[in-house]
């Protein structure tokens, strides 16, 4: 099973591997959600939704349903 941002726990980090361009708005890509970039889950609202992320230095919040479409790999260092 592939790991996505929705699987991250608070404080965990990962690297974006693939984004399915069908499900992800261009705006999110433009804000830095691109393959190779680091992502960290900073905070979650109740029921883990929405999720407050730091992607590539940009702090933003997305809903869990969107987070499920961003595939990541766990970051090796740290």
């Amino acid at each position, binding site marked *: 099973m592939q790991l996505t941002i929705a699987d991250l726990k608070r404080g965990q980090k990962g690297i974006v591997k693939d984004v399915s*361009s069908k499900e992800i708005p261009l*705006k999110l890509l433009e804000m830095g959600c*691109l393959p190779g970039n680091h992502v960290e889950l900073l905070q979650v609202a109740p*029921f883990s939704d929405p999720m407050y992320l730091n992607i590539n*230095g940009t*702090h933003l*919040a997305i809903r869990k349903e969107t987070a499920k479409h961003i595939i990541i790999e766990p970051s090796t260092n740290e």
Partner: protein
Amino acid sequence: MSKQINVALIGNPNTGKTSVFNALTGLNQKVGNYPGITVEKKQGVCKLPRGVKAHIIDLPGTYSLNASSLDESVVIELLLNKNDKDYPDVAVVVTDVENLKRNLLLYTQIKDLKIPTILVINMSDRMSYKGISLDIDYLETQLDTKIALISTRKGKGIEDLKSLIINYKTLSIESCIDIRNIDTNYFEGLEHVFPNQSLYKLWLVITQDVNFGKIDKNTINDATNFKTKSESDLKRLQQKETIKRYQFINNVLKKGQTIDLKSAKDIRIQLDRILTHKVWGYLIFLGILLLIFQAIYSWAETPMDFIDASFASLSEWLSTKLPDGVFTNLITEGIIPGLGGIVIFIPQIAFLFLFISILEESGYMSRVVFLMDKIMRRFGLSGKSVVPLISGTACAIPAIMATRNIESWKERLITILVTPFTTCAARLPVYLIIIALIIPEGTLLGIGYKPLTLLIMYLIGFAAAVGSAYLLNKIMKIRSKSYFVVEMPTYKLPLFKNVFITVVEKTKAFVFDAGKIILAISIVLWFLASYGPGDDFNNAEAIVTEQYASVNLTQDELDEKIASHKLEHSFIGITGKAIEPIIQPLGYDWKIGIGIVSSFAAREVFVGTLATIYSVGTDDEDTIKNRMAKETNPFIGGPLYNLASGISLLLFYAFAMQCMSTLAIVKRETNSWKWPILQLVTMSSIAYLIALIAYQVLK
């Protein structure tokens, strides 16, 4: 020879673009709308050295030229249309030193339009705090432009920016990215058909719904004999374009920017641990709301009492100084009380705009969006609906415009439909005067009964909005894909200048817009109340004197009887009496009825209307509140404004859709008369029913 330079300010949201605009123009700015649409258009004039003037236009904040909302399309439409009178001679792209990488994406796009582009790196005062150092010379060479490193907070670098603007002709207009690299075949084919056009512009026309010059999407599709791309192919290419741009930016920043993470501090993370916390976050939000209401109530009281008394004495002074006659009466009984009815609310409206602009400026509003999203979604709304619902406490019109960044059409439509339930500033005048009349002094847990009642009115408005959203969400069958992306900017201490300008501009707009309507209505009402048809009105003196011939009345008492007899038989009295049967079950008399009917133009007219009606024919110049307190109920005796009728009035105003401007905006934003008519009919019926129940239960 002075020539005007057209400057367009462009930048991502939260980069301090507005601060740069304010620093350049000061109060020398005007806010209007783009023709046909309601996107706010801010422009101003900046005086440059050597007598040159710059005409500065502050474009809506956008993350990229790939527009996803109406506000963003304004940016691209202007930049593609060389014939527009505002087409910029030079573009100023404002970036935030902390988010340089992301902010530069937009810069590369603007540069590719071959417009001379100045890069502003703002918030430079935070560089050492964040451990950032920049090699400006290197960046200028690589990005092929001039850079102004400024700090609007410390007022640094603005003069540098001005001299860059004046020398804009020396800037290079080479593009950053060669768009051909994204898909060589496709773009070379395109170039073959349109050899004289900028490829990036053509690409924007294909991917966005905009036209430039005589070229639109269809002419391109017709003229290109090679296969046009499908929607998903286009999106894939846009993704590729974005990656290419970031590669370019990363290369530039690798050498041009060093970040020493060890010395970087981030207060945002610590603050967010508390402010977006599952428990504390919500408690703090509630606390902030409570503080706002307590403040609006108690801080504004003194200036309001002062204004109220000043208008009464102004009226009195004028009536003694001006010669007796119809015009004096029109001024002292019609216009001054009518205007006083709106001027008195300036302190409260200003406080409300003050708090809202502080919440926005500080970056806290995004946290509220984050906290509330899941909850709001249950009601068919989005976390982003919180911003319209909170701004709706100032005015529904900007609030409805603020729904534009809600990505899902269904969530947006529901937000538009329910926003008018929130307690807007125009309801305040009505609420405050009624609360002052019917709610006793006293405190509960340190909060006065009066502010508490006001808070309850706000909560009722909010509950009505959320409740009807829930119903609409169940009823409406609209399927729309919902995206939700919200940036969480760093916390900033709000800049005094920005907050001040917002408060002044918004309050001014509110008072003048409302003032015009109120002035007109006051004059019409005064005439209708001062003249009447038939014997009953014209021979009032004789009739009343005869009627009370057997009773011993002083001259004053007799005059008062005559005045009220005249009012009852004036044009307005006849109209009011005609509608009285409808509103009598709610506990109102015909005078309140006139107030309600006239406030279908705008709610705040109510107080002005009553002030005009009550002052016609009376000589003593009293405050509006005292006049209202003296009114008696013509059917059951006792004060007209008692607990039952007061609560009934409060509830009526809480639910009724009484604002023509809001209806017009809803029509424009939804592009259909169906929704505003639905609002008008449903909201007003609910208002009538609830006011009826409240009065019948409480009386």
